[in-house]
């Protein structure tokens, strides 16, 4: 008989473990426990989601009618800049880090991250980065040059208020935190897997977090370099991006997109992992084509660094350059398609339970396919020449960031909420939230594809009363309000579950991975002992020994 693996005690007591858990807020602030930090990340993300969403609603009010006077140009330009910056750096990034930090040690059978204090530091520095960014509203005006902040519009002579300086410092701090967490996750996965936990047994989610760590380490330095160079321009009168005195406008774009495009994959790879876990468990079947799902993650990560110029096809760089980046950008479609069809393959022949988490995962497949396909149209250079910088881009990126990333994250939230809090969410309200959100989302953003096609540029605070513009924008705004309403349902849903939700059992969904083995919510120390690992579904092997993967030969574990 095989015996359980004992999880070794940490060499030194976990720092912060001495603070009594009844000390409330102080305990959260001083915590270095990966679960508490994960939850802090998620709370930060939720807070900024509401703030960034409110900014978006104000923008949609302004765009409800042609030549509307609700907001002036300056206010609108600050709002859309803050909306984009907030959603990417302070909603999606902390949300994926939150899930990564919470789940990775649990899934690999560890009791902590490799560097618990670095983990806490990384969270708090990102948190204060966000506060600093928002402080700009009080300091004389928020940044107003868009989330990608093109030169030379980001220079002092075009934006003399301090907003862009706060943008630089806020993003630098958040970026340092993100790099810290990314490296921490890699070290954790390499060195803290429980005994016998081979790489080929890692859950897909952990694989995606692992790949993501390298993406973060390689992408963020470009942004940090661009930000310090911009700060030197603005504060010390440097000349990197100041075209009036020999600087280059395109250097900023190269550095920014060398970070910016991988960033898209940074916020979408972990949701891919979440979707993989959710679809497996609710289809009651192992993932279809494990090596292909993992391998396509690697392919996406590698290609991610060779595609940035597709954001710059309209800058007149010449057809040779354009064709190279067109090829690499189109190629990314292949591994992405492989993932979509493997998820469909996972559902095929299963016994599917359509919980709220599964509904989000299912609709993810459709919404993300739309976002992915509209993305391919930017790789086809001549189509990009027509549609880049229009509302078609706005539609595309929201299908990727919401339809892809956020749907994945919500799916994960509904899936792991019982584990994190020990309470079940109300499925009926969950369905209400799901349908309101999905309908609102598609109303808002599908229309924007058409707006781009009929000639509406992005980032305009108002638009002339041309045929079609008024009606489509009105529909888009109504959709946005519907999403706003759905967020109220969502907040009530969370509140109700925390106040009087049903107690969750340790493994309410018959999950496959180690986090479902411990209590709900887990104790400060996650595990004392663990069963040995023989497949990528160790808990399924334990709970269904008669059909467990551990009986299969190595080849059969990964498909025929």
């Amino acid at each position, binding site marked *: 008989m095989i015996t359980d693996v004992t999880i070794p005690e940490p060499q030194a007591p976990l720092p912060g473990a001495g603070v009594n858990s009844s000390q409330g807020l102080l305990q959260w602030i001083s915590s270095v426990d990966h679960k508490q930090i994960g939850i802090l990340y998620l709370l930060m993300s939720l807070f900024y989601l509401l703030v960034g969403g409110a900014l978006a609603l104000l923008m949609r009010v302004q765009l409800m009618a042609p030549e509307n006077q609700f907001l002036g140009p300056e206010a609108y330009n600050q709002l859309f800049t803050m909306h984009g910056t907030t959603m990417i750096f302070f909603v999606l990034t902390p949300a994926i880090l939150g899930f990564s930090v919470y789940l990775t040690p649990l899934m690999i059978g560890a009791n902590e991250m*490799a560097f618990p204090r670095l983990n806490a530091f990384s969270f708090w520095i990102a948190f204060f980065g966000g506060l600093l960014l928002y402080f700009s509203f009080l300091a004389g005006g928020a940044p107003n040059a868009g989330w990608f902040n093109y030169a030379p519009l980001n220079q002092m002579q075009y934006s003399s208020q301090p907003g862009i300086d706060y943008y630089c410092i806020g993003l630098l701090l958040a970026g340092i935190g993100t790099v810290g967490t990314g490296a921490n996750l890699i070290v954790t996965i*390499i060195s803290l897997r429980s005994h016998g936990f081979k790489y080929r047994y890692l859950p897909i989610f952990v694989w995606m977090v692992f790949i993501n760590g390298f993406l973060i380490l390689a992408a963020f330095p470009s942004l940090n370099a661009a930000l310090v160079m911009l700060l*030197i321009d603005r504060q010390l*009168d440097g*000349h*990197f991006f100041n075209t009036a005195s020999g*600087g280059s406008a395109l250097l900023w774009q190269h550095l920014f997109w*060398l970070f910016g495009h991988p960033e898209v994959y940074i916020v979408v790879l972990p949701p891919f992992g979440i979707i993989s876990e959710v679809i497996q468990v609710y289809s009651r079947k192992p993932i279809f084509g494990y090596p292909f799902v993992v391998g396509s993650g690697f392919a996406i990560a590698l290609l991610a660094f060779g595609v940035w110029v597709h954001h710059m096809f309209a800058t007149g760089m010449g057809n040779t350059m354009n064709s190279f980046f067109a090829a690499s950008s189109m190629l990314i479609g292949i591994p992405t398609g492989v993932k979509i069809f493997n998820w469909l393959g996972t559902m095929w022949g299963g016994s599917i339970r359509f919980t709220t988490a599964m509904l989000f995962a299912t609709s993810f497949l459709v919404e993300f396919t739309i976002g992915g396909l509209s993305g391919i149209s930017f790789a086809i250079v001549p189509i990009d020449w027509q549609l880049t910088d229009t509302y078609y881009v706005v539609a595309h990126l929201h299908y990727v960031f919401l339809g892809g990333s956020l749907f994945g994250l919500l799916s994960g939230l509904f899936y792991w909420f019982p584990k994190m809090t020990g309470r079940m969410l109300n499925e009926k309200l969950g369905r209400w939230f799901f349908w309101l959100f999905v309908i609102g989302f598609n109303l808002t953003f599908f229309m924007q594809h058409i707006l781009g096609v009929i000639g509406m540029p992005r980032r305009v605070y108002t638009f002339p009363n041309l045929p079609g513009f008024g009606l489509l924008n009105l529909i888009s705004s109504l959709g946005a309000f519907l999403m706003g309403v759905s967020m109220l349902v969502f907040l009530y849903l969370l509140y109700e579950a925390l106040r009087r939700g049903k107690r969750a059992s340790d493994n309410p969904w018959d999950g496959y991975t180690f986090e479902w083995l411990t209590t709900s919510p887990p104790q400060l120390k996650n595990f004392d002992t663990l069963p040995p690992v023989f497949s990528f579904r160790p808990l399924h092997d334990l709970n269904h020994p008669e059909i467990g993967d551990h009986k299969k030969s190595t080849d059969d574990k990964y498909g025929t």
Partner: protein
Amino acid sequence: MESKLMMKLVVGSEAIFFLALMMGFVYFAYFPGFDPKSLALLDLTKTGAFTVLLLASSFTFWRAEISHRNGQIGSLKGWLAATVGLGVIFLFGQGMEYNHLLVNQLVVSKGTFATGFFTLTGFHGLHVFIGLIMLAVVLYLTFLGDFDRPQSSVISAVGIYWHFVDIVWVIVFTLVYILPHVVNMK
């Protein structure tokens, strides 16, 4: 073990950061051509001497690691102190050079060459400074007896960082001080 792995990842990430700054410098300094006046202000021999000292600090650190592995705490302390000393001298040299440039009106806002120069060498100097803090902490801990046992990986982790900073300087020195003369001669 974990700290060494961590340091390798951090150094990898930092390398990309410096690569971006170097590309910025090359783009702005090499293509418009060098201003001979700015270039003449850079003292090749003096900075060359300080470069040799910084490289020597890599050697002393390497000796320190060996002493640690062999459990020779006395010589560990000596080599560490020498490394810190050499690093401080290098920073002092950089400070003198900056002072010389500022006195001669070569400031960040003087043109794209100056902006690139101060950014690149300034960030390198910042990294030397951070390295010195780490080394000072290690030296302090050595005196407290933390490294009496040879198992600790902290010293080799700091070593990875310190050698990295030296390698970056070799490239910066080549790009900023040596190659421009070669390019200008043609």
